[in-house]
């Protein structure tokens, strides 16, 4: 003879197991969805960060390449010659007799105005030669300074170029570091985690356990009365 209470208990146990299984399946599906969502989020953030890093690096590289282009030998040599000419014009006095022979009168000492013609010619030749020699040396001085020392010398120019591009590179580097730090926080994001026990996460599983507990307590009470 079958015990009806036992049959009921068995039925309930089977029902509980089914409920538990169902709850577990639901939880696994939810967890899978959460993982998929997390994966999609991480992939998106990784792509975005890659893009940001690449763009910032390209901007820095553009600044670097711009400086390198300006430092090509032909441009440096042209800059040197330009500065040499500018400086030569700037530092050469205007009253050089070799190119301004009309200024001969200004060069005479007081008392020399009425000198003999031959002496005057000799004077003119000597001062003109002196001006010519000085002009050559001034030109040499301009050349020396155009390499380094004058305001637009090639050394000064190179420094300016490097300084400007380094500022851009540093800015982009800083942007990249900041973005990497933010990405580090994004990488720490974890997927939602579902649990079976504790009645919190699983839902169905927790309810099943409570139900089983209540039925178990009811059966125990009936057995005690019998």
């Amino acid at each position, binding site marked *: 003879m079958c015990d009806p209470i036992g049959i009921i208990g068995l039925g309930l146990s089977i029902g509980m197991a089914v409920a538990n299984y169902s709850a577990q399946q639901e939880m*696994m599906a939810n967890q899978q969805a959460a993982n998929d969502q997390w994966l999609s989020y991480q992939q998106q953030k990784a792509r975005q960060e*890659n893009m940001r890093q690449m763009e910032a690096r390209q901007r820095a590289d553009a600044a670097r390449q711009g400086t390198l282009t300006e*430092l090509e030998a032909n441009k440096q040599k042209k800059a040197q010659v330009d500065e040499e000419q500018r400086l030569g014009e700037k530092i050469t006095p205007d009253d050089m007799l070799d190119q301004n022979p009309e200024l001969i009168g200004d060069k005479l000492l007081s008392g020399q105005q009425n000198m003999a013609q031959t002496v005057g010619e000799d004077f003119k030749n000597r001062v003109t030669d002196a001006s010519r020699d000085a002009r050559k*040396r001034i030109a040499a001085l301009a*050349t020396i*300074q155009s390499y380094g020392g004058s305001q637009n010398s090639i050394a000064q120019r190179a420094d300016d170029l*490097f300084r400007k591009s380094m500022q851009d590179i540093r800015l982009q*580097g800083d942007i990249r*570091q900041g973005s990497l730090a933010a990405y580090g926080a994004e990488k720490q994001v974890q997927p939602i985690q*579902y649990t079976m026990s504790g009645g919190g996460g699983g839902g169905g599983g927790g309810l099943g356990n409570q139900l089983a507990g209540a039925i178990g307590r009811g059966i125990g009470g009936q057995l005690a009365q019998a």
Partner: protein
Amino acid sequence: MGGKSSPSNSQMVQFQMQQAQEAREKEAQRKARLEHGKTTIDSLFGDENFGNDFYDKYENAQLNFNLPQVWDQYDRARRNVTYDLARAGTLRSSIANEAVADVENQKAMNEASVRTKADADVGALRTSIGSQQQQAYNQLYATEDPDIAATTAINMVQNAQLSQPNLNPLGELFRPLVIGATGLASGYQEQGNINRGMNPRPPTGRGSGQDYG
């Protein structure tokens, strides 16, 4: 059953493997960019672009600025020696030979000094160009690695400054031998004549007194 569901399932492992693969590919691209960048910089600052003509121009400018000063002073020293020898009446003497030889020796040494300085300044210019090349490398690595950018920016300021050659006029380069001990004697004699109220015999014409030898 139950317990925590960790993110280390197969999808996540796949994701991490994908990330690792991307990191490897990016590193390979970075390496290629560095190698290409270094090659470009080496070529840019190499001998083909900054050859001897570039440095020779600088050296010649230094020589053209400084050597004429040496030559001017040499001419002046030669003239002074000639005048001193003539005044001392020793123009044709062994002391004259010695004095001229001494001036020639000083000229050679001064020229060598100027040329040596010019050569050293060309060395400084090469260093300056080398410093530019180093800065270009630094920027290359800073571009690829943002961590380097900040420190590089701080350290690179004015690395490429060219040390300035001495552009002041050269001081007195020539010190001819003292010539004319007889000049000292004649000076003493002239002073004696003055003390005696007599004028010495001028180069032309006659003095106010008789000859005293």
